[in-house]
């Protein structure tokens, strides 16, 4: 059998009408009739992505304003010129992907896993390029403080981003939460870059970067647990017969 024959067989099937009972179609139409009201379509992707980016910037600035802008004050011009635009681009990419995850049938440029990997690799690459102090003083203790600070700021960022897209519909909630976590992690890294004046290369490479994958993983885990919980509650909706 050749590809052409398979094509022909599928074409024949496609041309065969697939009849449905009119009673079934009638039941479906009746079921939506009572709740058929005008709805406002979601805003365009770029507007929603702008909203998400603004939230991340606001959370990062608010966090740093509370803790102090020691990091950005200590940075040189090159570090400022590379780190913050890079974070801005990553936030924009992650924000756009999050919007796409929340709208069925959207075009996906990156899978959630690829987005997380790309963001982590870019952060590691830029940090490795810019920070050359290879001492490891207080590596664990200072690192855990930074990691917790980043993650704690990722939580409100994730919640606010979810609020912006609450009218969306994730066909895969775990994927959507993974992307939301990655995006929120970027806000956490923003706080750390503005605030943390510890420029030891390994500290920045390990603990600052770790905020993004951990935040993404936490998001996916929460969504997975919620899906299990909702699933086990056995919610089921059917059109009345």
């Amino acid at each position, binding site marked *: 059998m050749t590809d052409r*024959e*398979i094509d022909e067989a599928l074409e*024949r099937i496609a041309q065969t009408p697939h009849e*449905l009972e009119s009673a079934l*179609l009638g039941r479906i139409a009746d079921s939506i009739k009572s709740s*058929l009201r005008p709805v406002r379509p979601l805003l365009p992707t770029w507007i929603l992505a702008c909203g998400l980016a603004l939230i991340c910037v606001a959370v990062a600035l608010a966090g740093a304003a509370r803790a102090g802008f020691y990091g950005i004050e200590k940075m040189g011009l090159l570090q400022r010129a590379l780190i913050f635009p890079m974070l801005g681009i990553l936030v924009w990419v992650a924000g756009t992907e999050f919007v796409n995850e929340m709208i069925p*049938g959207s075009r996906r440029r990156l899978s959630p896993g690829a987005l997380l990997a790309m963001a982590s690799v870019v952060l590691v690459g830029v940090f490795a390029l810019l920070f050359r102090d290879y001492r490891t003083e207080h590596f664990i203790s200072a690192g855990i403080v930074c990691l917790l600070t980043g993650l704690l700021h990722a939580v409100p960022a994730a919640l606010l981003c979810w609020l912006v897209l609450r009218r969306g*519909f994730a066909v895969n909630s775990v994927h959507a939460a993974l992307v939301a976590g990655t995006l929120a992690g970027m806000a956490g890294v923003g706080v750390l870059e503005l605030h943390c004046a510890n420029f030891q290369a390994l500290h920045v490479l390990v603990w600052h970067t770790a905020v993004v994958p951990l935040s993404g993983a936490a998001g996916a885990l929460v969504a997975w647990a919620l899906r299990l919980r909702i*699933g086990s509650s056995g919610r089921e909706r059917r059109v009345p017969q």
Partner: protein
Amino acid sequence: MARYQEGDFAAATVLIEGISPQLHRFFVAQFASRTDADDLLQETWLRIHRVRHTYRPGEPVLPWFYAIARHVRVDHYRKTMRTRAHEQRLEGISAAAATASGKSGQADDLGDLLAPLPESQREVVEMLKVAGMSLEEVARATSSSVGSVKQKVHRAYRKLRETMNAMGSGKGQGGRQS
């Protein structure tokens, strides 16, 4: 679709009549029995109705419908698996007959033809060759890339060729399995 979003019942009815056969065939092709496909179709329309604001005028409409239909099918599959596991725990016997796995009662040519394929390849072939969607639309509906869709179709065709040739059922039947 825009008129449906504006609350026009006539437009909603036209959509239901136009899209439902395609979605129903999609479910049947995924090994659902006709009864299960009816249920899945109703569930899909409830979901579509609830999230109709997520469709944005100007965007391709079929990927939006199929993305939601896939979501409903996956939900149904998970529910079936949970029910089956629960019944097996309770009864300590094989619950295969009691769980309505959806594999029974399938008597559709499309289901028969695509039977050798795994689910991910089957849905892609169905959307591309039967529903007449473009590669880009299938990629949108399945939340994947165009490259990944092409790869799945290529593998599906190879598998179909191998299966049909092995079964020697290619002669004049257009590749249908018995």
